[in-house]
């Protein structure tokens, strides 16, 4: 007897033959081959292991036949092949290398883990999919109630709307009119602007009349105003526009007037410039007053966007006032100057950015009532519609009502980790209170950036609610912009006061303090450092400026960005400002550090 090889080695006594080849070549009776084949197949071993088993069984049956047993007896004594194969396979696998067993155990562990997670996730998915919000309040209806209680003929929007619709073809016919800034009399641009404004005249008169009405009176809806839409989008298929919803999501409420008010503002501003160039101070004043009225109306719109657009319109009115007084002070009579000062005080003075956060909390409460279930105690869990909100806000796809597949799949996990309704609401109010604190605190006293501070509040709260971070930065920028806005308004009043002083005294005062209280109620404060706003008279020309966020007085040398003097700067803390100055405005952590190098000229702005 001679040894061929150990069975533990790879390969086989018969070389690389497969189990099937070993069985076929054995020459054993067919019923025996069938039993061996079935047994070997049932082992579910690796190829060379199966060949080894096949050879052993072939040898076994040959020995039996050699001993004179019949094939039928041997097959009968062998037992059931499949069961035998399974047992042999199981036993043979035990002989494998320990690494294989480690892998197997790891695989089984992973499988159990995956199965466990799948069951858990399935349960979570059922909980998520069966969650439905309870829409208890119709916030749009609540916000619309005062408007609907106002007679239609007292609502300014009903007067603006036909004028805005009728002026649309003229806007298109005089393409490029709204890019004309300050045309010089006699220039082709002046002629073009004049032609456009003459064409607009009847409708601008209607708009000016509308600005005198007490309330804006726009009814919130999530459906486009079809007639207005047709006028502004000639050739559009209005049949495809969605119908209004009885209780619309506030996030989908359309604020169509905003864009039209802004465009009409540009037309009024252009007419003011043309009027002054032609020596018509009255027409310029009327248009500026109309712009201020439009700003006041826009402030009536709920939500932060109303404040933002209102401020933007007011800024145009103030800038136009300041610019025209600087260039053509003689165009305005004393009465007109006084009227401008009085209307700036009245129509924009009381409006503070974000002064009334109620509509914002309404917005949030409406969102929460749709995102979460309601347990009756102010709490609830995230629903599929809640996921839609999160997905739509991230993708800016608010008009696509379908919940993306990825959101359907990730929904249960987000639900498991997301804050509940109560926690989300509390955090939102904390963030609003935080911003209100910054709004009420002078900018020069800040020690932190409100946005970064807000993000820390959100992070420190431990509350997981992704919408909060999407929302927070806009509010921070709003608070910063609000500071510059208030300052611009005060400086515009100071510019009027300077002109009034000059007319009364023959020259500009040496200090702004001399204007108070006769021409100016109070002295503007520089938001950069809390000192009186900077004022200089050089060669008989006045200049009002803020030292800017670098806190260095450059005697009115303007900081520049993209070749133009900067009009606002983002807030900087004192240490960063000092560092920026020391490094010659090269710090790379700022996107454009050079735009902090210099002052912010507030009046006159120049070209």
């Amino acid at each position, binding site marked *: 007897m001679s040894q061929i090889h150990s*069975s533990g080695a790879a390969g086989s006594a018969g070389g690389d033959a497969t189990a099937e080849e070993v069985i076929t070549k054995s020459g054993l009776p067919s019923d025996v081959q069938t039993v061996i084949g079935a047994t070997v197949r049932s082992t579910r071993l690796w190829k060379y292991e199966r060949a080894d088993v096949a050879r052993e069984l072939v*040898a*076994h049956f040959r020995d039996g036949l050699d*001993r004179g047993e019949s094939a039928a007896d041997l097959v009968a004594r062998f037992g059931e092949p499949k069961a035998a194969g399974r047992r042999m396979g199981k036993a043979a696998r035990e002989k494998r290398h320990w690494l294989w067993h480690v892998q197997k155990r790891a695989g089984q562990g992973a499988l159990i883990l995956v199965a466990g997670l799948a069951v858990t996730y399935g349960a979570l998915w059922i909980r998520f999919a069966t969650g439905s919000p309870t829409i208890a309040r119709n916030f749009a209806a609540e916000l619309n109630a005062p408007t609907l209680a106002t007679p239609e003929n007292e609502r300014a929007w009903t007067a603006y709307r036909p004028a805005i619709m009728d002026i649309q073809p003229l806007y298109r016919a005089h393409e490029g009119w709204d890019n004309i800034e300050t045309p010089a009399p006699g220039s082709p641009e002046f002629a073009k602007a004049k032609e456009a404004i003459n064409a607009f005249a009847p409708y601008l008169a209607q708009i000016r009349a509308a600005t005198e009405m007490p309330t804006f009176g726009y009814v919130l809806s999530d459906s486009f105003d079809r007639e207005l839409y047709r006028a502004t989008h000639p050739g559009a298929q209005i049949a495809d526009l969605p119908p209004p919803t009885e209780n619309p999501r506030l996030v989908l409420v359309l604020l169509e007037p905003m864009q039209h008010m802004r465009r009409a503002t540009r037309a009024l501003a252009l007419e003011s410039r043309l009027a002054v160039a032609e020596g018509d101070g009255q027409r310029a004043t009327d248009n500026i007053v109309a712009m201020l009225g439009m700003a006041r109306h826009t402030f009536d719109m709920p939500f932060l966007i109303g404040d933002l657009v209102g401020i933007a319109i007011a800024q145009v009115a103030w800038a136009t006032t300041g610019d025209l007084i600087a260039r053509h002070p003689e165009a305005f009579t004393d009465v007109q100057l006084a009227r401008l000062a009085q209307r700036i005080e009245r129509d924009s003075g009381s409006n503070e950015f974000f002064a009334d956060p109620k509509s914002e909390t309404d917005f949030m409460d409406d969102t929460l009532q749709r995102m979460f279930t309601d347990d009756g105690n102010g709490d609830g869990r995230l629903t599929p519609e809640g996921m839609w909100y999160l997905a739509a806000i991230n993708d800016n796809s608010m008009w696509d009502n379908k919940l993306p597949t990825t959101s359907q799949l990730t929904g249960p996990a987000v639900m498991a980790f997301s804050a509940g309704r109560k926690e989300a609401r509390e955090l939102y109010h904390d963030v609003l209170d935080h911003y209100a604190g910054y709004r009420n605190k002078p900018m020069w006293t800040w020690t932190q950036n409100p946005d970064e501070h807000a993000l820390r509040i959100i992070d420190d709260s431990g509350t997981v609610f992704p919408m909060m971070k999407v929302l927070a930065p806009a509010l921070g920028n709003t608070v910063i912009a609000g500071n510059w806005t208030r300052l611009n308004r005060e400086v515009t009043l100071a510019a009027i006061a300077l002109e009034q002083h000059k007319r009364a005294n023959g020259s500009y005062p040496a200090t702004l303090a001399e204007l108070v209280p006769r021409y100016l109620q109070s002295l503007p404060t520089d938001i950069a450092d809390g000192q009186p706003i900077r004022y200089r008279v050089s060669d008989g020309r006045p200049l009002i400026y803020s030292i800017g966020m670098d806190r260095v007085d450059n005697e009115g040398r303007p900081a520049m960005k993209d070749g133009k003097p900067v009009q606002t700067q983002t807030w900087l803390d004192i240490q960063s400002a000092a560092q920026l100055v020391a490094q010659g405005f090269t710090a790379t952590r700022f996107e454009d550090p050079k735009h902090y190098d210099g002052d912010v000229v507030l009046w006159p702005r120049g070209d």
Partner: protein
Amino acid sequence: MRIDRDLMRGAGPVAVLKLLERRPMYGYELVEALATKTGGVLDMGQSTLYPMLYNLEAKGLIEASWQTGESGRERKYYALTGDGLAKLKEDSKQWASLIQAMKALGLDGAQAIRNMAFGRALGRVTVPISMGGVQ
């Protein structure tokens, strides 16, 4: 007489180790020896024997090797390892003690073991009173 499967699970491996104590043997040889030397009591089907051999090999108690016999036929031979020998000695002692205990209870070896197997199947050791045992 055939032995119950549960009992065979305990006795079979010891019997195989005992047969291999003298010399290496191949599968059919073991089947034949178990049947003839035990009067058919440990006559196990091949579908029982081969998994048992693989298990013993996996535990390192026996080792396998392909060898060619004088007839020129290839066979897989199984031989006892050192661990296998130690295990056989230990199991032999236990079996001797068990048989002694059964005898003391009035059961002669094979019958006692058979009854024990039934008892285990029922979840308890059952020795018929009629045979002098306790229940």
